[in-house]
C-alpha cells in the first residue's frame, strides 16, 4: 500500500514510530499504517489512537519465526514511500529480507531522519564501533530504515479511529521454532532508570560493585557496565552492558566509574542528559565524553560521592 508503514514488535516502540511516522506521512501527503504481530493486537489498536490511519496485524502460524512474514510484509510495503522497523533483533532480519525482495537499501539503526525538499530522507547512523557517524540519502521507493527503541518520543493520544486488518502469514515448512527459553529480568531494566552508574575494569573485584550499587541507590538508579565486565568477567548479566552492541541508555545522569571511555561503550550513553566521569587517569578518553569529570581513585570517590548525595537528595 502507498504511504508510510511502521512495524514494531514492541508496543512502546510501535507508538514511538507511529508518532514519527505521522509527521513523515503528513510531510509526504500520505497515509500511515501501523503493523505488528497479532500477539501484539493491543498495540495495533493503540497505534490508531496515536496517529495511524490504519493498522495491520500479522497472524504467524505457531512455531514460525517472525522472519517468515517477509513475503506478506513485502506485499504490503511494495508501493510504500517509507517503511520503518523497530530495530529488535528479529525485526532486523525481517527488514533485511523485505529489503532484499524489493531491491531497496536499508538504513540500519538510524539515529535521525531528516526530510529533504525533494521527498528524500537524510539518515545518520553510527559506524566504526561508535567512533563515526555516516550520513546517507534514501530516495528510491520504498525508503527503508530500522529504528532503535526510544529514538523518537511517544506521541500524544488523539481521536483517530480505524480498522485493524489481519494478514495471515503462510508457514515456511523448512524452518521451525522448537523451543523458547525466556530470560528472567534480574533487577531493574537499566534503560528505564533515571540514573545509571556504569562500571568498567577499574573495579578490581566483583564485590566492589557494591560501591556502585550504593551510589546508584541514592539516585534511585541502576548499575550498568562495559562489555568486558559482563561478557569476560561475568560480574553482571548481559542486559547490563552498555555500548554499541549492548544496551543504549538515556538517563538524566550517567556516572562512568573506572571505565576508560572507549567509543564502543560511550556510544551507548550518547543521549544521557548529564555524564559524570570518575577515573584515576587524567588522560582517560572518558573525560572528553563527560560533562563533569573527577580525576581520582574510585575507592575513595564513590563512598564520598554517595555520602554527599545522601545529604543533598535524602
Amino acid at each position, binding site marked *: 500500500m502507498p504511504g508510510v508503514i511502521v512495524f514494531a514488535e514492541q508496543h512502546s516502540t510501535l507508538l514511538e514510530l507511529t508518532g514519527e511516522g505521522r509527521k513523515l506521512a503528513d510531510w509526504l501527503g500520505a497515509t500511515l499504517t501501523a503493523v505488528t504481530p497479532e500477539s501484539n493486537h493491543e498495540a495495533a489498536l493503540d497505534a490508531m489512537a496515536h496517529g495511524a490511519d490504519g493498522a495491520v496485524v500479522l497472524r504467524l502460524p505457531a512455531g514460525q519465526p517472525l522472519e517468515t512474514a517477509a513475503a506478506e510484509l513485502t506485499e504490503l510495503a511494495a508501493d510504500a514511500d517509507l517503511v520503518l522497523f523497530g530495530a529488535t533483533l528479529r525485526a532486523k532480519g525481517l527488514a533485511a529480507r523485505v529489503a532484499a525482495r524489493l531491491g531497496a537499501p536499508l*538504513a540500519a539503526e538510524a539515529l535521525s531522519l531528516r526530510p529533504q525538499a525533494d521527498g528524500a530522507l537524510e539518515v545518520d547512523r553510527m559506524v566504526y564501533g561508535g567512533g*563515526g*557517524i555516516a550520513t546517507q540519502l534514501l530516495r528510491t521507493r520504498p525508503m527503508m530504515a530500522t529504528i532503535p527503541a526510544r529514538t523518537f518520543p511517544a506521541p500524544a493520544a488523539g481521536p483517530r479511529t480505524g480498522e485493524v486488518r489481519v494478514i495471515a502469514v503462510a508457514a515456511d515448512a523448512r524452518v521451525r521454532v522448537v523451543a523458547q*527459553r525466556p530470560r528472567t529480568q534480574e533487577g531493574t531494566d537499566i534503560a528505564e532508570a533515571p540514573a545509571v552508574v556504569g562500571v568498567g575494569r577499574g573495579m578490581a573485584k566483583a564485590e566492589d560493585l557494591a560501591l556502585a550499587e550504593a551510589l546508584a541507590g541514592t539516585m534511585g538508579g541502576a548499575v550498568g557496565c562495559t562489555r568486558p565486565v559482563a561478557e569476560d568477567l561475568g560480574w553482571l548479566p548481559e542486559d547490563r552492558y552498555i555500548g554499541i552492541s549492548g544496551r543504549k541508555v538515556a538517563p538524566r545522569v550517567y556516572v562512568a566509574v573506572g571505565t576508560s571511555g572507549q567509543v564502543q561503550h560511550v556510544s551507548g550513553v550518547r543521549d544521557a542528559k548529564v555524564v559524570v566521569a570518575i577515573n584515576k587517569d587524567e588522560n582517560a578518553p572518558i573525560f572528553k565524553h563527560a560533562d563533569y569529570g573527577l580525576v581520582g581513585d574510585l575507592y575513595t570517590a564513590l563512598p564520598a560521592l554517595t555520602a554527599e548525595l545522601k545529604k543533598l537528595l535524602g
Partner: protein
Amino acid sequence: MPNIITCYKWVVDEADIKVEGNGALNFERAGRKISEYDRNAIEAAVQIVETAGGSVTAVSLGGPEVKNPAKDGLSRGPDKAILALDPRFAEADGLTTALGLARAIGSAAGPFDLILCGEGSGDVYGQQVGPRLAELLGIPSITFVNKLTVTATGVVAERKLEDGVEVVEADFPVLVTVLPDLNKPRIPGLKQVMGAAKKPVVVLDAAALGLTEAELGARAEARGVKAASSNRKQVKAESVAALAEAIAAALR
C-alpha cells in the same frame, strides 16, 4: 558431509582511524583485517567439517581497499576462496554486498548446504547482509546464533534474542549468522599460512558477476562520514562535593 560457504569482509582496523581537527576521519595509516565476527563464522564452518567431513568455501566481496583478501581467510581452514572484487564495490552497502555475494555463490560455489556469516560487520555493522543473501538465494536465515548443531539434514540453532533464547530447527540449505560467543577462533599457525597460498582462488569482477548498472546504482547515496563528536561540557570538578551538586541538579 555438508558443503559449507562462509562469507567474510575485509574491514579497516578501527583502532587505527585518526580524527582530524575538523572532525574528518583519516584512514591513511589504518590496517585492514577480517571482520571479527566473520572469524567466528569461518571457525564454525571449519570445526563442522573437521568433525563431519565436507568442504568449506570462503567468499568475500570488496573494492580496491582489499589488498590480500584470500590469504588470511584461507589460512583459517577453508578449502578454497571465491572473491568478488571490483572498484565499484568500494564501500559497498548491504544491498550491493548481498547481491554480489549471491551472484558469486550462484556462479562459482556449486551446491551448498549451509552458509555461515558474522551477525554484522565490524566497520559499519549494518547487520543485514546475512538475511539479505538468504532471501536472494531463496533459503531461510537464522540470525544471532551462539550455539549451532549440524545434523544429517539440517541445523539446530540457538538464537540469543532480547527476550531469551529461541531454538530453531531448519533443513538444508540454510544461512546462519553467528555471535562472537559461538566459539573462539583459532589463530592460524605458520603451516596454515603457508598452505593458504596453494589453495584455489576464483576472482570475479562486477561484469563477470552479471551485475547491471541499475543494480550497482541501487544503493543509497553515501553523504560522508565524520567523527562522532562529543558535545559534553568537559568541566573538571574540583571536589566530590561539586560533583554531587551537579548530579543533584540534573536529577531535580
